[in-house]
């Protein structure tokens, strides 16, 4: 298999107004690569939810997107507080978001469920006090 195309982003943790820029950039990149609107939409939403989570829950992190011939892989890594109970966090409606975050429209507790719904594979590795890595795959062929 040929080498994947790799895109790397540093996600700034203290700026809400720029949160989501990496996802928007990826959307444009995938468009240029000629992927279908449906795939682009799924990748964009899954990545945006993950990117926002790193901003609001983990003070930022990194995003790596690898485009293979048959799939897109998104790896989001942070050194935030970690997730104590992943099963609980995956439940629709579960959120620890602050009131100020909620006032912006976040904190419905639907981000992780959306990431699961829009991807073909999703894995969360998290250690409390160390950080969280979310790996998602979307098949394109």
């Amino acid at each position, binding site marked *: 298999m040929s080498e994947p195309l790799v895109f790397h982003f540093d996600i700034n943790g203290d700026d809400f107004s720029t949160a989501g820029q990496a996802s928007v950039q990826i959307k444009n990149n995938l468009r240029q690569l000629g992927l279908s609107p449906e795939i682009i939409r799924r990748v964009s939403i899954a990545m945006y939810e993950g990117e926002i989570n790193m901003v609001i829950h983990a003070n930022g992190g990194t995003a790596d997107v690898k485009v293979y011939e048959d799939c897109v892989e998104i790896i989001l890594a942070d050194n935030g507080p970690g997730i104590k109970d992943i099963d609980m966090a995956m439940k629709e409606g579960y959120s620890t978001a602050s009131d100020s975050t909620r006032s912006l429209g976040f*904190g419905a507790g639907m981000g992780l469920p959306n990431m699961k719904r829009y991807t073909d594979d999703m894995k969360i590795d998290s250690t409390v006090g160390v950080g969280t890595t979310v790996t998602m795959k979307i098949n394109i062929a």
Partner: protein
Amino acid sequence: MKVVELASLCGFEVLCMPDGDRQVSGAYIGDLLSWVMGRARADSAWITIMSNVNVIAVASLADVACVILAEGVTLDDELIKTATAKGVNILKSELPAYETATELVGKV
């Protein structure tokens, strides 16, 4: 129907319309962004009272045809520029969300 036609038929104010020829199909009402990303369909009209920068990102990534700000909510000039640059159509209605949605019935 195209966004540009919808705006004029329903009497919505146009805040920005970089892609007025885009076809609208269906609608979704919601203010919690993850609900919108989970439930709104591509090409739909998204009715909301939220008006921060994240709305523009969500509209773009979720690939909705247009945002309709209800209740007379408006957007800062700076955000209108951002939406224009990102190709996001933004309309404005003086009506509450439900009445705004009823305007769309039979059109989208």
